[in-house]
């Protein structure tokens, strides 16, 4: 629908339109390609001609400083400037040599002749009345961290919340988020993992039942309304620009965030100018820690879990030539006993594998013990359902790759890592994996076994860090 105001004023006809709420809600804070927009072409043209949008080319070309090397390309969506990821080709649409960005091609190709739309119309007003429906209680440490976080955000200062796995990080965010919502600010909680988005979204929905919030991830369904609280994967932040008054990055050390510079840039470009960014993690990278020191960020540290029990410490078990045994179709004895024991005690369990092919070979072997055991990996479309089933006790245990190393909370879960010496299991990953166990107050202990073919430095580092945190948390 179009609202057209017509007024005759001294033979000058004024013709303007009032932006439809749907179109504003969709585009506010976003940077979106014109061809992928879910509105009709005519409608967009109409808005563009009335300068409701600013138009940017998707790839901009800058002359490089020593002009010897020709041009430098820059992707305006993912802010990638790695020249190796730009591809030149003869484009039939613009009829000349064109360039596209391979970095964000999974979200639809951006080339020189693609146009990005940035909303230039009136901004929305966010409600300041919100319901906060949560009646848990904080430990002293949690309370302190929550207040520090809120203070940092109030002072527009960046913040690091360093808390062990199972310290109740999500809950600590609640007061700060509520504080921002009541100020009418727009907030984003970003995380590198889709699983974490899926885990956080219902929890926030429950805590803030009257707030409009959207979840954005790979195949997220279309959501209506203007979201004040956005929970998104860091990849999805490519599509936002100067949108948020506060950005909170949860699990800030997870792959691929630490690995991919442009994701880090995406976080900074998604916030409004001068808006604070808060990082939440159990295993901060040294890079992040130096930044905290150098730039004087706020920092909170929680070495204890919310239930006050120490972190369960992993134990090492040698499992020599596990890969060869699994290749031969034989389950290593120790692993079999461990699994049977969990089944006997009816405890849910995770078994982590370093690679998908190894895991897939192991699935039928485990299914001989119990037919309901199944495996999940990054490309599994039923990942959500399988984790849900484990939580409801419909299946006894899951085999998984590192995809479930974080953000998943299951009561009384027991953990085994097969091939803990593999390169993929860094100390950070192992700490996260260990953090799956003993999260519930009724079951503060859980078994964590690192089955290995030789102890690696990373394994030692992970165990020492857990022991250090326990010492720190129980220093009196």
């Amino acid at each position, binding site marked *: 629908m179009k609202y057209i105001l017509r007024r005759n004023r001294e033979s000058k006809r004024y013709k303007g339109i009032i932006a439809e709420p749907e179109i504003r809600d969709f585009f506010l804070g976003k940077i979106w390609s014109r061809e992928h927009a879910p509105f009709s072409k005519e409608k967009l043209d109409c808005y563009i001609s009335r300068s409701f949008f600013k138009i940017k080319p998707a790839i901009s070309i800058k002359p490089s400083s020593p002009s010897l090397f020709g041009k430098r390309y820059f992707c305006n969506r993912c802010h990638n400037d790695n020249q190796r990821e*730009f591809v030149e*080709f003869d*484009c*039939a649409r613009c009829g000349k040599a*064109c360039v*596209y960005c391979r970095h964000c091609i999974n979200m*639809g190709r951006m*080339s020189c002749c693609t146009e990005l739309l940035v909303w230039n119309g009136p901004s929305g007003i966010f409600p300041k009345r919100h319901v906060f429906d949560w009646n848990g209680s904080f430990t002293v440490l949690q309370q302190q961290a929550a207040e520090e976080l809120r203070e940092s955000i109030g002072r527009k200062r960046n913040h690091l919340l360093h808390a062990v796995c199972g310290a109740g990080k999500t809950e600590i965010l609640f007061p700060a988020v509520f504080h921002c919502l009541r100020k009418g600010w727009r907030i984003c909680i970003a995380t590198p993992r889709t699983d974490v988005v899926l885990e956080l979204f219902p929890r926030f929905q429950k805590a803030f039942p009257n707030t409009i919030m959207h979840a954005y991830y790979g195949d997220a369904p279309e959501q209506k309304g203007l979201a004040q609280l956005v929970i998104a994967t860091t990849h999805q932040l490519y599509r936002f620009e100067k949108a948020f008054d506060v950005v909170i990055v949860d699990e800030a050390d997870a792959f691929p965030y630490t690995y991919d510079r442009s994701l880090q840039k995406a976080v900074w470009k998604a916030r409004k100018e001068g808006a604070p960014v808060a990082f939440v993690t159990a295993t901060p990278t040294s890079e992040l820690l130096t930044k905290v020191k150098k730039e004087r960020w706020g920092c909170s540290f929680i070495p204890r879990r919310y239930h006050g029990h120490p972190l369960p410490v992993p134990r090492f078990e040698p499992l020599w030539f596990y890969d060869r045994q699994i290749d031969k179709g034989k389950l290593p004895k120790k692993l079999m006993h461990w699994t049977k024991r969990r089944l006997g005690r009816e405890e849910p369990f995770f078994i982590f594998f370093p690679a998908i092919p190894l895991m897939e070979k192991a699935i039928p072997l485990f299914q001989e013990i119990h037919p309901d055991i199944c495996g999940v990996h990054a490309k599994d479309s039923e990942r959500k359902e399988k984790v849900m089933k484990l939580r409801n006790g419909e299946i006894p245990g899951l085999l998984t790759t590192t995809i479930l190393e974080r953000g998943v909370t299951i009561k009384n879960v027991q953990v085994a890592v097969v091939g803990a010496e593999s390169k993929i299991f860094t100390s950070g990953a192992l700490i996260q994996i260990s953090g799956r166990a003993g999260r519930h107050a009724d079951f503060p202990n859980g078994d964590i076994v690192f089955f290995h073919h030789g102890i690696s430095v990373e394994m030692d580092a992970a165990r020492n860090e857990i022991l250090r945190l326990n010492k720190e948390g129980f220093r009196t």
Partner: protein
Amino acid sequence: MNRREIDHCLLCNAPLTIRMDWKRLFVNRFPQAICQECEGKFERYRHEGNEEVDSLYYYNEAMQDYLHRYKFMRDVLLAKVFAGEIHRHLKNRKELIVPIPMHPEKWKERTFSHVDELLRQARIPFVHVLEKTTTEAQAGKSREERMKTPQLFVLREDAQVEGKDLLLVDDIYTTGTTIRHATQVLMEGGAKSVKAFTLIRAKGGQEAIKASPLMF
């Protein structure tokens, strides 16, 4: 990318380990573009007797991914992946190479012609003699629907095919409708013989290949 060497696998982004040798140093016309692991996932086409249509690979999961990224996500660079193979296969053919054309509108929409680009990267000279008349795609149609489609092509006005041996080139062979239509037009135009080559061949029973929507 065009002047620089490819140093990461175009499909899985793993770093490529390329051993340098004399041949590489001097005649590196088709540098390796994908890693061994990705290459192993493609299934080579086995020749089943004397056939009119020749192919290089079967349509399997890896190929589906490839085609999706190349054709529908429009990652033009992926034309390099099979350049060497196509070159080796077609360089000694005596026939005139005729790619299956795209409708101009479709061509604009996709911004490039996928068959032309494959041949260009493989450095195989080609001539367009056909013109596509419809914009609808064969992908996504059932076998029955494909069989019933009216003629898809017309001969270009300036085309000279009389008495010539021709080799049609397309990306994928599913039911053969496209190739059959093109062959018919060319034979009517007076061609001496028409053979065909496709990069991919759907296995028997593998029918409707789904047209993947643009993911973003």
